[in-house]
């Protein structure tokens, strides 16, 4: 603590006018002096008793007792030894006695803060002071080794000072010869000090010293489309996370995991299932648009990455029966990136997003930066991780049932799915005998990850190469079933089996940096991934016969394996950027990148001994017993990850290419009042998505081209204005038009002002405000309407035809959002705590909504798009991080964050498609987009006494009533970390809290149904959910949850041990996630929902909860 005070005092001296320059002006803690120990201490009594100490040491002791700083001329020599005894003398007297005969004299500065030692002969000093030198140097960040611009460097006790240029260099002329203390300070960094000596032989010196970034976020440099800026200079809150820090405390297996565990306030990650590769839906600050995408834009190393491939229209178009697409899930595109290759992730949530990145960024931007090489020897790292995954809240299984058919014959079979959906359960009308097998879903899962990386380079070339292999076996279990002379008709596989069972990833990431000379820098990045996703299989054996969705009939005596599908995806994003910095005040550069994803989906396709279609007439097994099934001998077995050489349905269905060239020009001039001018034309991007398969995939060319200009004004290093303007020279609509996205943001370091209360509780207070426009553009089809290519069978040939598909509206304009964000940052001294607060008000005008057309139009009844609605989103975000203990022995941190978000439809407009008052997905003014409505259960009773609530024993209301919002209105996260043993042993934990939000619960028992004897209220809800199900079978519940998100312990083995193994570091850790859940939710998992896209949700009946994970990691660095 004392160390901090001394630094603050040093800063005070810089700004106090005592023998130092008024420039650079600094106000940081100017008036702290009244509270500091040194203030007004010249009259303080000094007592000491020293023998044979150097005079300089004696003077220092006096200064210490007085609580004053010490400064002396370089010409003063205080190296003789003295002995002195003082008792209760004042400071002046003590100094006088100490310096007697030394040729020097002492005085107290006029503000009483410093002891100044000068030679007794002032004339000679004055003459000598005419001799000056120059201090040149560079200030670098202690961590990154990069130059730090904007640092105020001053020579203590003189007027000499300078501010570092963009590369961190500085030059201070006319520095008096002598011994000096050089001080560098920049808000967000701990001030650095360095002793220097200028003499007649060496009047010019070169100094390089490092400054240590403050733990506070003020010091962060954020990467935006227009280059790098200090976060302090941006008025909206850009959250930057370090991927390694997250991965050290949580089992991060995907980028989605990384975002989830980062627990950024206002960022929601909704998971579609707890299985490998399950897609996620990311929402930043809630839902904005009624009909347009609300996905944030994804940028990796400056390259736009397709974030649309998990849209509902293209979830998975591998084909099932009847050419119907199957909604089996595939990973989100961002999960094709190995999270271990990520260095940092930035969340740009506020108004600056659109002005930086254009209309695709209206819902926010997530910027990923991958790891880079560094100057030095090759540094190898290998890590291995093994996870044990356990299913929580699992169902034990489902039944296949059979019973009497509609003719009363004992030959009808309830299919798995129909039985699951209760269609085989009739209220006391038919007596179904049951026979079944369990689909045991609670088996253990596992993840094995191997990662190998190397980093290094020279001052001209740096490199970072990494590769990883991940094998993730899910917790779903599928059965093997013997069919004993059975006729198994028309098995409709339960949806559960169409979810991923196993996922394997092979990733390669590389980054090369070339710096051939001081003005040129070239970066090349390549991130590639190949993933193989396999869903569950059921293997039937025995001599039975069956058909699967009428697609195949199994020959008697032969086996049948049902593959429920899968996908292979190859994803590569690659970019090259060139930066030219001819002078420190300006630079220019350009980049070009491409993101390519190709996915091949597989449907249910592996019918052994059968081609597609009917293999054998059904009557051939007429004599077979109708159905006998038995569960396969031995335990059930997951047969996944197989290659289907005989696959008949394999659809190369998606190739998505984005091409992102950009060029930028940055001009930064430092003037008396620093003016930063940044001119850029970024990003020019082009994306083309193409689909080639079934379904309603729309292949839109999304082209943005524009330029952005930002001007930053730095006033006295305490007030910043950032004015940005982006002009998109065209879009998917109105190709000859343009869209503009202005932005204005400001931040004000109030604590630098003289009027700021002078206390030590708050070291820094920054007020922020930002305002900007954004827009979501409609798709081209919404504007132009017209025809789409379709394949059709005519004359028994498959040909391309044109299909009149949509109605255009050439008056359509983009949805415009006006977003205001205001907030403040508070930092306590010594980085002990930081508090960040944001208030956000986003108002969407011209919101696009579907307007109905009558059926007689012959056009899609969803109508055409019109700009008629208004939507408002308001959020509050708070982050608090504290370092209760932070020393070499121990670190103790606790923190938390919370966010509230609310969404209101302010206006809908006439004749917008508003679902009927019996719908669950109504759009109503005054309520949220995605609000959930439900028919109320007015009464029920087991009238016929059969123990089962049937539909006619249930009374439901006629109209749905509001139940809540499908997005949590409140989210919070709580974290804690303690490090011991010189920070080699670390424990951490995190909790997450959410609620309230609506989740559809399926009230079914372990057999996937409500059975006779189940509690009647439960049955009533379940039956009600079936009756009112228009899209989802669940019962809407307003839920909240508290989850023990992660617990980890990590240990760095002693260096002596690791060095014996020729390694720099060997670290082991144990991590756990999802270890506890406290919720009022009666379903499976309030965080998991089977609808991964769009604004609607579905029930949780077909999905797995997030599994409980225990992970063991070992990391070796060479």
């Amino acid at each position, binding site marked *: 603590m004392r160390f901090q005070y001394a630094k603050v005092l040093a800063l005070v001296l810089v700004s106090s006018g005592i023998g130092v320059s008024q420039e650079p002006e600094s106000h940081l803690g100017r008036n702290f002096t009244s509270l500091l120990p040194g203030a007004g201490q010249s009259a303080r009594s000094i007592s000491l008793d020293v023998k044979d100490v150097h005079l300089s040491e004696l003077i220092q002791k006096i200064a210490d007792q007085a609580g004053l700083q010490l400064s002396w001329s370089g010409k003063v020599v205080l190296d003789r030894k003295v002995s002195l005894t003082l008792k209760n003398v004042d400071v002046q007297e003590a100094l006088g006695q100490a310096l007697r005969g030394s040729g020097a004299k002492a005085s107290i500065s006029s503000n009483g803060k410093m002891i100044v030692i000068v030679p007794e002969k002032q004339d000679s000093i004055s003459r000598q002071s005419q001799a000056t030198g120059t201090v040149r140097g560079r200030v670098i960040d202690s961590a990154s080794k990069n130059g730090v611009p904007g640092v105020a460097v001053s020579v203590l006790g003189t007027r000499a000072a300078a501010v570092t240029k963009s590369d961190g260099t500085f030059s201070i002329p006319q520095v008096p010869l002598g011994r000096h203390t050089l001080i560098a300070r920049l808000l967000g960094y701990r001030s650095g000090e360095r002793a220097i000596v200028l003499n007649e032989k060496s009047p010019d010196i070169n100094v390089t010293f490092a400054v240590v970034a403050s733990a506070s976020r003020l010091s962060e440099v954020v990467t935006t489309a227009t280059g790098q800026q200090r976060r302090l200079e941006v008025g909206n809150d850009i959250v930057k996370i370090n991927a390694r820090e997250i991965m050290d405390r949580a089992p991060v297996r995907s980028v989605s995991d990384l975002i989830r565990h980062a627990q950024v306030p206002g960022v929601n990650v909704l998971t579609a299932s707890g299985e490998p590769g399950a897609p996620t839906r990311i929402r930043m600050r809630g839902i904005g648009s009624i009909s347009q995408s609300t996905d944030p834009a994804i940028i990796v190393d400056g390259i736009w990455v397709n974030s649309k491939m998990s849209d509902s229209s293209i979830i998975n178009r591998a084909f099932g029966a009847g050419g119907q697409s199957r909604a089996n899930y595939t990973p989100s595109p961002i999960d094709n990136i190995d999270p271990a290759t990520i260095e940092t992730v930035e969340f740009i949530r506020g108004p600056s997003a659109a002005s930086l990145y254009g209309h695709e960024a209206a819902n926010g931007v997530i910027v990923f930066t991958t790891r880079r090489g560094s100057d030095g020897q090759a540094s190898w790292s290998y890590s291995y991780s093994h996870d044990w995954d356990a299913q929580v809240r699992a169902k034990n299984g489902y039944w296949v049932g059979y019973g009497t058919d509609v003719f009363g014959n004992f030959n009808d079979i309830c299919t798995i799915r129909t039985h699951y959906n209760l269609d085989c359960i009739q209220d006391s009308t038919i007596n179904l005998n049951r026979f079944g097998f369990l689909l045991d879903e609670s088996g253990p899962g596992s993840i094995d990850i191997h990662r190998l990386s190397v980093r290094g380079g020279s001052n001209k070339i740096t490199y970072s190469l990494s590769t990883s292999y991940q094998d993730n076996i899910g917790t779903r279990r599928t059965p093997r079933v013997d069919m004993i002379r059975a006729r198994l008709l028309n098995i409709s596989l339960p949806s559960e089996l169409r979810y991923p069972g196993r996922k394997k990833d092979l990733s390669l990431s590389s980054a090369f940096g070339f710096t051939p000379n001081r003005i040129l820098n070239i970066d090349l990045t390549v991130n590639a991934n190949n993933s193989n996703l396999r869903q569950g299989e059921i293997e039937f054996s025995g001599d039975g016969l069956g058909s699967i969705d009428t697609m195949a009939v199994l020959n008697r005596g032969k086996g049948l394996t049902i593959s429920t599908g899968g996908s292979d995806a190859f994803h590569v994003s690659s970019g090259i950027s060139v930066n030219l910095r001819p002078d420190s005040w300006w630079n220019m550069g350009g980049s070009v990148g491409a993101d390519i994803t190709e996915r091949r989906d597989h449907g249910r396709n592996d019918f052994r001994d059968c081609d597609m279609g009917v293999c054998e007439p059904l009557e051939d097994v007429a004599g077979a017993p109708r159905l006998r099934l038995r569960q396969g001998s031995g335990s059930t077995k997951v047969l996944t990850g197989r290659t289907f050489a005989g696959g008949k349905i394999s659809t190369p269905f998606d190739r998505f290419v984005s091409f992102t060239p950009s060029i930028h020009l940055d001009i930064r001039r430092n003037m008396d009042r620093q003016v930063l001018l940044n001119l850029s034309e970024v990003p020019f991007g082009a994306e083309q998505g*193409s689909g080639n398969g079934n379904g309603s995939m729309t292949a839109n060319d999304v082209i943005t081209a524009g330029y952005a200009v930002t001007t930053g004004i730095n006033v006295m290093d305490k007030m910043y204005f950032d004015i940005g303007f982006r002009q998109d020279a065209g879009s998917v609509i109105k190709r000859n038009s343009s869209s503009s996205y202005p932005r204005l943001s400001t931040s004000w370091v109030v604590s630098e002002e003289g009027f700021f209360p002078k206390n030590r509780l708050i070291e820094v207070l920054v007020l922020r405000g930002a305002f900007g426009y954004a827009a979501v553009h409609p798709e081209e089809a919404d504007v132009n309407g017209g025809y789409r290519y379709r394949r059709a069978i005519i004359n028994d040939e498959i040909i391309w035809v044109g299909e009149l598909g949509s109605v255009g509206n050439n008056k359509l304009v983009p949805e415009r959002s006006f977003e205001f964000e205001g907030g403040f940052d508070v930092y306590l001294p010594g980085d002990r705590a930081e508090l960040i607060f944001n208030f956000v008000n986003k108002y969407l005008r011209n919101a696009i909504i579907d307007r109905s057309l009558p059926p007689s139009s012959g056009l899609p009844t969803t109508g055409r798009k019109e700009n008629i609605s208004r939507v408002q989103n308001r959020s509050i975000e708070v982050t608090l991080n504290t370092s209760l203990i932070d020393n070499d022995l121990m670190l103790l941190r606790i923190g938390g964050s919370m966010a509230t978000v609310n969404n209101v439809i302010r206006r809908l407009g006439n004749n917008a498609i508003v679902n009927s008052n019996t719908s669950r997905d109504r759009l109503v003014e005054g309520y949220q987009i995605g609000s959930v409505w439900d028919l109320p259960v007015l009464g029920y009773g087991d009238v016929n006494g059969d123990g089962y609530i049937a539909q006619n024993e249930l009374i439901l209301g006629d109209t749905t009533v509001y139940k809540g919002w499908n997005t949590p209105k409140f989210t919070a996260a709580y974290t804690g970390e303690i490090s011991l043993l010189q920070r080699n042993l670390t424990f951490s934990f995190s909790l997450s809290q959410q609620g309230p939000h609506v989740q559809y619960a399926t009230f079914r028992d372990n057999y996937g149904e409500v059975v006779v004897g189940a509690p009647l209220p439960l049955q009533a809800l379940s039956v009600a959910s079936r009756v009112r199900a228009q899209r989802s079978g669940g019962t809407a519940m307003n839920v909240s949850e508290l989850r023990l998100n992660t617990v980890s312990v990590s240990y760095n083995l002693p260096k002596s041990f690791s060095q014996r193994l020729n390694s720099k570091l060997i670290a082991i850790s144990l991590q756990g996630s999802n270890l506890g859940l406290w919720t009022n939710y009666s379903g499976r998992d309030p965080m998991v929902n089977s609808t991964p896209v769009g604004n609607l949700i579905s029930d949780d009946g077909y999905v797995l909860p997030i599994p409980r994970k225990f992970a063991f990691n070992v990391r070796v660095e060479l």
Partner: protein
Amino acid sequence: MIKLRSIIGACIGSPLVLLAACNLNSITDSANSIDGELITPDVIESKEGARWVYLGAVARFNDFFGRNTMGVARFTDEVSVLPDKFQDANDARINNIRPEEESYYVAGDILTRGQSTKVQLQQATQLIDKYYGSSGSAMKVHSQALLGLFYIIIADNYCSGIAISESNYGGEFIPGPALSRDSLYMRAVASADNGLSINIDSVPLNNLLKGVKARALNNLGRYKEAAEAIADVPDAFSLGEIFSFSEIRAEGVGYQPLVPIAIDKYHILNSKGLNGVIWVADSSAHQDMRIPVRTNAAGNYIYPLQPEYFSAKKMIAFFSGAEARLIEAEYHLQEGNIPQFIEKINSVRRLYKQRSGSTLPDIVDPGNHNSRVDLLFKERAYTLYLTGRRIADMRRLTSHYGREPETVWPTGKSEGAQFIMYGSNYFFVPEVQGNGSEANLNPNYNRCENYDI
């Protein structure tokens, strides 16, 4: 049997037309298309674009026709759906057809698809005129025939007061007035006459146009004109569409033109309700292959699955010579020419075989008018089984022949589906859409109650 290939074959009768209009492969090869990709207006406004629109209209019609056929079959007693084969709640709902509002789901869907077909056929005609001129005659005639069929199908199924709006791909929409069924039949006649006025060298297309005209006139009660229209259509003529189920699955085409989405989901039941046709009994008793039921190796009835469309490839006729003879038979019945009536009936029966391989035996005059009417409509039911004629025929029985609805329409419990009850409203006369959106959004629309059903 003449497939749709015949139409294309007809339109390619001229070498010039072959190259210009009907070489489908050239379209496929040159398109480099992506399913779902938007075709911008400038692409449509071209010769090739016109052809895409035409082919798309044909595909749309097939889709509409197939769905209508299946939908109509489910509204009558032609097929039943195994109750445990319900795929989802909607499937269950649409099979519980008698509460009228439930039936709108299917009815509205069919109508919307029909309207889409009509809009695209009209635009195809305009574009063909614009970019092909006389060289596009075959496509234009084909479009006219399909347009006529559209009007007939819509008029057959819906109550009077059907709104026919106009719209185009530029987004313009002109809400149309509600039209009576008769006026739609007249539109069908006009479309057929339009097509017949264009001189093309295609016997199949001309026969189809004649069939369209005759069907419309027959529904209008103009029996003589109807019979005259198809007098020269040969007995063996049949024209329709085929599909390849496996190819649909494998290729994932956007349209599923015809019926059997799930083969064993549908089956035949014997006289569903109280007044249905005794399909199974007649089929078993008379070995009538027109409505075969599943038998075992010994030829005994064992299973009520309908296998008519069980095959992966099966054609459903738009119009056939058999139907032409039945139209002639009805004309003779109306004229009181009983010998000719019986002869026409038997000429149709001779086209079909028993399971034994011999043709269906001739029948004799049942002796009275009512029985003759019964005979005519039973023969129509068996001959035109699952081609989408049943509702129209049942409606003609009440409107043209004075039968009481409850004697025509199945009532009571559905035999096959124990839990499905036919409603008390015997007529299947749906409005455009159950949620009333047509009434809400089309100011020119009048509800059915202002018109005869």
